[in-house]
């Protein structure tokens, strides 16, 4: 296996078979799944946005709820992609042996892992879009520029799907995912500018946060939702795309190591 372990995954339309399989399952539970994905971010956005917002005059020239809305789109994208890639991905890989069944057909493990990544990113896109739609309905995103959030959300979803699949490929069981959520996802919620401007943080934490993907997603999403072109678009996009590519590549390599030996 050494020969192939690190080779770059080959993209094939076959990943759509895997995507489609997950889509068919999702369709059966679409309504409860959507509500579940939407309820949590909505509660935070509206509860904190209006509750806390009443005490906060303005943040960066916008109401606090508008400030929070952009952060919520991004954090909800991160959460959905992570959950899908880890809990659901692990079920399909390890518990139900769905991947094993697919691999007996003329589909490769690269196809399966990348199909899972694109699927999780698609689900993240759906949930980010739902939050965005609610925000727009509340008058919190009226600029056409906000439509640019869709590609931003998708790439962000792909980055977190890749990271989640890395953890899945390493995980001995479901308990392992708690570490990732406690040590990676939750801290990102706090240092990446979701709830408050990153400038409030000590300098070293700001510098640390600059390496995290969620920071760059928020940095793009917030101006776009408020009718402004973001500063430094190139670097932000590059970081997000970089995370997506490297994480998906790492996930494929680790999955090969786990399953093809």
């Amino acid at each position, binding site marked *: 296996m050494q020969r192939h372990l690190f080779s770059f995954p080959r993209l094939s339309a076959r990943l759509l078979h895997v995507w489609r*399989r997950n889509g068919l*399952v999702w369709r*059966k539970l679409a309504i409860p799944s959507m509500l579940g994905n939407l309820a949590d971010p909505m509660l935070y956005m509206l509860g904190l946005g209006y509750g806390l917002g009443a005490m906060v005059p303005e943040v960066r020239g916008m109401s606090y709820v508008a400030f929070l809305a952009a952060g919520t789109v991004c954090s909800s994208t991160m959460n959905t992609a992570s959950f899908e890639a880890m809990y659901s991905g692990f079920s399909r890989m390890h518990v*139900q042996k*769905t991947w094993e*069944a697919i691999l*007996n057909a*003329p589909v490769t493990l690269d196809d399966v892992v990348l199909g899972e990544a694109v699927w999780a990113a698609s689900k993240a896109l759906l949930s980010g879009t739902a939050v965005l739609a609610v925000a727009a309905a509340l008058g919190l995103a009226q600029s056409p520029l906000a439509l640019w959030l869709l590609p931003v959300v998708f790439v962000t979803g792909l980055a977190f799907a890749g990271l989640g699949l890395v953890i899945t490929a390493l995980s001995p069981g479901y308990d392992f995912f708690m570490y990732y959520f406690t040590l990676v996802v939750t801290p990102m919620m706090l240092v990446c500018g979701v709830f408050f401007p990153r400038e409030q943080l000590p300098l070293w934490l700001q510098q640390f946060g600059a390496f995290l993907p969620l920071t760059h997603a928020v940095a793009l999403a917030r101006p776009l939702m408020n009718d402004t072109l973001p500063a430094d678009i190139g670097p932000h996009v590059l970081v997000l795309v970089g995370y997506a590519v490297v994480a998906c590549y790492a996930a494929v390599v680790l999955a090969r190591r786990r399953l093809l030996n």
Partner: protein
Amino acid sequence: MRQLDVRGLRKRYGDLEVLAGIDLEIEQGECFGLLGPNGAGKTTTLRLCLGLTDPDGGDITMLGHPVPAQARAARARIGVVPQMDNLDPDFTVRENLLVYARYFGLRPRDMAQRLPALLDFAGLAGRADTKIQTLSGGMKRRLTLARALVNDPDVIFLDEPTTGLDPQARHVIWERLRQLLNQGKTIVLTTHFMDEAERLCHRIAIMDRGRIIAQGTPRELIERHIEPQVVEVYGDGADAWVRSHRDALAQRCETSGETVFCYAADATGLVQALDRQNTVRYLHRPANLEDVFLKLTGRELRD
């Protein structure tokens, strides 16, 4: 026509040599059985032939394709029934077949035409919309077999196809496999059940510790490796009784648990002696594949 050709296949995991040079030649229309104790390398051999793991040495040609280089092309014409059922629990019977066919690039429209025949084959014609969780073990196995046929494969791999099934369900699977052989399909199966191998397989390879230690038709293996008659002696004092008579009456005896297995070219004398006493009981039968298997791989447990 040669369907599978394996030469000098080797695989090691760390210090453990799982396959130490395997040669196999399997022809079209054959049912070939891989037998061996746990850990003999049967499942590893199947995985390597499917191109799911790279070998450390040797060559595999599957349906004319070198594996693993062209494993995907080979797998397009293979059906696999894995050891553990991995049907999709989120789907119904019908959806399991339709979704699986998609992995082979088959169009749903073409597949819809073949679906009734596959459901019939699985004996699940009335249950197309049933959820997987409500199926019995035998139904799941039959559906897994039908799923392995969605691409109308030339070769079907079955890894312990009847493990965990009740006798009725096993007989149904055997009958289905014979139907497939009659259609000219090639079958490669692993099993722990000697009666299954003896009944279904044209040829058998017995594996142990990563090597093939015997190969041939069931009849050849029995003729070549074991005395034709077996007398099983059991009950209190069986061991002592046999010990006092063995030299005169049996070629070879083995004790396993409370039973003594006596092997002989002609067991008439032994049976007559047994008839004259009434302390121990016995069973006189022709030698079978299980006797060969136990002689070649030993009686100690393999965990």
